[in-house]
């Protein structure tokens, strides 16, 4: 699977682009020209210039530096949320698709119920219950979105569970955990990869929306959604302040959406032939 993806130029290009953004986030203190928290009220609302490439905000903080520091919460929180959601969804999907029976019935009814609620509203409800906090938006996203993955992964598992190589493995007495981990999981890994990369974009938008509404990451921290929330308050005075974070979100989300499509095309042999 990895080798197949490495041969696809579009996948490699997009993945390195996202990787470069991630590296910028990790090495933010060395790359960013200024400290993202230093106020300098004298130079507030500075226009684009050589000293401040993207200008300064209402407190005179350098927007480019805040944008670079903002990669950390925006990108890494979304990835963390994604990994947690998929792990839970994959576990539930594997268990219910492989063992079937009573357990499957219980998990699937739970999934049905979760999916009958609109996910965005449920995320708001969970945050209301737990309180406004960074870890709570992750919990809320995981609690609400796992059901969606569980159902898709269960369908995939059911396609594989009666294949010969798995029946054989069971015949020679492999442990169930071995079959699940070594046979089934690798077989559906490509499906999970596609789902994940297509959905990261959604998660980024969702988390930044929560921060924008003030329900997620709070103001002084440089997160793109929270930056846009601050920019909203000075929209009439300094409209340029909201351009950079928004463009950054669009670029990152488009990169993930394109990557998802590219991975799907690369891994789906039917698409290549036609």
């Amino acid at each position, binding site marked *: 699977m990895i080798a197949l993806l490495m041969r696809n130029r579009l996948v490699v290009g997009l993945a390195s682009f996202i990787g470069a953004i991630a590296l910028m986030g990790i090495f933010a203190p060395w790359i960013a020209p200024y400290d993202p928290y230093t106020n300098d009220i004298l130079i507030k609302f500075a226009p684009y210039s050589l000293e401040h490439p993207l200008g300064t905000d209402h407190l005179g903080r350098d927007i480019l530096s805040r944008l670079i520091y903002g990669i950390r919460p925006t990108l890494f929180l979304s990835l963390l949320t994604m990994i947690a959601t998929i792990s839970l969804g994959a576990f539930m999907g594997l268990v219910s698709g492989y063992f079937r029976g009573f357990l499957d019935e219980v998990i699937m009814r739970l999934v*049905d*119920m979760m999916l*009958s*609620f*609109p996910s*965005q*509203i*449920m995320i*708001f*409800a969970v*945050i*209301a*219950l737990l309180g*406004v906090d960074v870890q709570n938006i992750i919990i809320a996203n995981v609690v609400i979105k796992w059901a969606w993955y569980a159902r898709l992964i269960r369908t995939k598992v059911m396609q594989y569970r009666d294949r010969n190589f798995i029946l054989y493995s069971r015949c020679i007495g492999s442990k169930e955990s071995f079959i699940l981990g070594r046979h089934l999981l690798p077989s559906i890994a490509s499906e999970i990869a596609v789902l994940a990369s297509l959905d990261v*974009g959604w998660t980024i*938008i969702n988390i*930044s*929306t929560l921060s*924008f*509404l*003030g*329900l997620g990451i709070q103001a002084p921290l440089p997160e793109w*959604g929270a930056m*846009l929330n601050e*920019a*909203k308050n000075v*929209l*009439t005075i300094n*409209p340029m302040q*909201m351009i950079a974070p*928004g463009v950054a*979100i*669009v670029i990152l*989300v*488009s990169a993930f*959406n394109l990557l998802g499509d590219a991975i799907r095309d690369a891994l789906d042999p039917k698409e290549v032939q036609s």
Partner: protein
Amino acid sequence: MFSYILRRTLTAIPLLLAISFVCFIFINLIPSDPAEVALRVRQTPIITPEMIAQVRLELGLDEPFLVRYWYWLVNCLQLDFGVSYVNPTRTVLSEFERALPSTLVLALTSLVFVIGLSVPIGFFCAVYKDGLFDRIMRGFVFITTSMPAYWIGLLLIWIISIKLNLLPTSGSASWKHLVLPAFTVSLTYISTYIRLIRNNMLEIMREDFVTYATVRGVKRHIILTKHILMNSLHTCIVAIGMSIPQLISGTIVVENVFAWPGLGQLCISSIFNRDYPIIQTYVLFVGFLFVVFNLLFDIIQHIVDPRLRKE
């Protein structure tokens, strides 16, 4: 046909019960004692353990869980959703009555935008496939799916309201205030349905009856509108109908950008104020809408599309 409607309606009931049960569990998970909250709501100056015990008895909190759920459910069916924690003079119902109309106006207007824009654009994209217009629209669809709705709202305020000074930035005084928020809400759906209609039409263009009509010498614009567009609209209307609840709940973000005084603003301020009865009722309301609209448009689809009835 009638038996299908009946069967489908009956399956919706357990789902509605499940949704109401989740909402009931939700309010029971709150880390504060409901009896104490009730005393605070009544603005009792000093709260003693005896008073809490008395209120517990009064509110029936000593009853078993399922009995309390039953009482709560009966109250909900009579539209009694309790009292706001923050403002005890107001019931949840009165708060909803105040906020719901503006949200419905907003959602309906965006629905008009969605249908009015995505149908013709999708149509022309399919007719002139790979033409300039189609390519521009495909780019537009791709970009808008990566844009957060609130940022689109901010951009529109900046360009239309501040730079061009055409429409007001926020508030809800006249129809002029409605245009920008409604357009922002509809934009995400417009791009989804442009793609849906375009792909549907392209699929139907390959069907045999289209070739037959062409061979028979039916005029091209009649084939396009009567045969292809009408057929592709079936699935679209059902899909749009089922997304109406999403449209209503999707106003939550946009209302906050444009200061539109609807349910979304009510919901967000309730989250900040920890006004749980309002949040609970909001979740119940949206869940109810989801089930009802799914049911409604599922039945409509069965009536409109005879192919589904054969089974």
